[in-house]
């Protein structure tokens, strides 16, 4: 679906942001692109969307070179940027103007998503708050039924109930022929949503595994005394005790703690990486 090969890119000469980057994302998955601020997440998404061009290497979506921005490519990809533009029109007018560009747009689904997000469909976009506008855009992006859906920090600006609504609608929207990529630095927002993790740090992809493999190989638990736990790969202390990551030697089933894994990999990813190699 999304195929990045030997991608090199720099904003300034002699200061490459990506060097020889390889990434392959398949349909039927929700990928969480995680990284600190400035790690290069948005730049990578822009490469996928064809808003930035590789200095060398290729970035293809559904076999189309994204940099060419051909209509056949654009109608099968939707980008929800962190900062976005919506014209000063009503929701209905917006749909009438933009929807015909997307051949698989589902108008009924769009209004259902709006209902889910509790957005009145007769409201003018200009009268909406930032969060409401973002929900309209997310609803439109999902209803457009594009094969690739990429979202840059989609939960920024959403209140707590809306974040939960967001997870619900995204989980319902995924299908075997769709690839959803969500970038965020607020990893907790993607709990229970993503099925594959891509961690980007210092402009490199340092970790890429699906959630099932992570929970097969690692165990996430909370312990009261860290000294009594063997094989701790990473630990974080809080009021309830210590949340730890250990090697899952006994094939126990545990729930992934996305934030803990993220912090563990950013702090010292080698021991964890060795388990996956």
């Amino acid at each position: 679906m999304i195929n990045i090969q030997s991608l090199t890119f720099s904003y300034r000469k002699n200061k490459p942001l990506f060097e020889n980057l390889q990434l392959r994302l398949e349909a039927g998955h929700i990928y969480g692109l995680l990284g600190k601020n400035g790690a290069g997440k948005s730049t990578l998404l822009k490469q996928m969307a064809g808003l930035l061009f590789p200095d060398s290497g290729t970035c293809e979506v559904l076999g189309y070179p994204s940099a060419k921005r051909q209509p056949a490519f654009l109608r099968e990809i939707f980008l929800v940027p962190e900062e976005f533009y919506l014209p000063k029109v009503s929701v209905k007018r917006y749909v009438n103007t933009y929807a015909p560009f997307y051949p698989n747009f589902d108008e009924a689904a769009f209004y259902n998503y709006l209902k889910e997000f509790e957005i009145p469909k007769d409201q003018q976009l200009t009268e909406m708050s930032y969060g409401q506008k973002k929900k309209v855009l997310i609803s439109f992006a999902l209803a457009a039924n594009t094969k690739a859906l990429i979202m840059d920090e989609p939960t920024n600006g959403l209140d707590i109930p809306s974040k939960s609504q967001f997870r619900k609608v995204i989980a319902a929207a995924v299908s075997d022929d769709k690839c959803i990529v969500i970038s965020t630095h607020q990893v907790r927002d993607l709990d229970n949503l993503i099925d594959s993790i891509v961690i980007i740090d210092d402009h490199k992809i340092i970790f890429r595994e699906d959630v099932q493999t992570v929970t097969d190989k690692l165990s996430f638990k909370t312990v009261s005394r860290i000294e009594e736990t063997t094989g701790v790969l990473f630990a974080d202390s809080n009021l309830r005790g210590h949340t730890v990551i250990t090697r899952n030697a006994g094939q126990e089933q545990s729930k992934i703690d996305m934030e803990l894994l993220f912090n563990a990999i950013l702090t010292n990813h080698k021991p964890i990486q060795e388990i996956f190699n």
Partner: protein
Amino acid sequence: MQPNNVFNVRRMQLYLQKHFTDHYRFYGMGMLVIFGLMTGIAVLMILVAREPFRRMSELVPFYYIGLFLGGLLFTSRAFNELGSKEKGVDFLMLPASQFEKFITLFLISSIGYLLFYHISSYLSFKIIEGAQLTALNQKIERNYDLLDNPKEKVYVYYGYVILQAAFLLGATYFHKYSFIKTVLSVFIFGFALWLINCIIVTLLFGFGQEFWKRSVPFLLVAKQEVGPSSWHSTVYLIPEWLQNTYLFTIKFVIAPVLWIIAYFRLKDQEI
């Protein structure tokens, strides 16, 4: 079915519709301002100063100023979306080809503006004439034909088309303050051409008589021969075939070349 990735009439129609949805306020205001200024100032002059326009040629300078100033200002805003990251993403990610987007904006800023401006000028002239007839009982003599007598007047429009193409190209380079930056660039380019001409003329004719002062760039050089009791000028003119080449280039080459460059610049835009 695989869509045509370069041009599709339906898609362009949809893009046009989308463009007007985004910009109808700006276009409406702009049209009102231009029409209002053209008509309002002249009618006020008639009604307040009670000074009639005797001939059409007295109004023509306003027409040319409006044509160039309005048209070029309008053209320089053609790719205004690219000046904002949010609007730029919306513009570039919309599923229409870059060619369709370019052609739409090109048609609106060239033919669209000319059409509006000439209808507006005609209506404005009729209102001015009507106001003058009512207030001062005096008609405006039709002594100026825009495209005829002498025929060289048509070159004003060739000039306009070339400048319009330059400002369209400027709009793809400068996303903010495009008009001012393009004006500056045109001046710098003109100055560079003049400088090159001075160097060539000096190399060919020598420095002594400051021939560069008495030349029309890339066209002619005048040489003054001063005798004891009289003087005369010898004019060195480029050959006729070169003059014809110049004319052909001005009429049919410069503007299309600038449009093509502008199109490729648009294709290369990154956000």
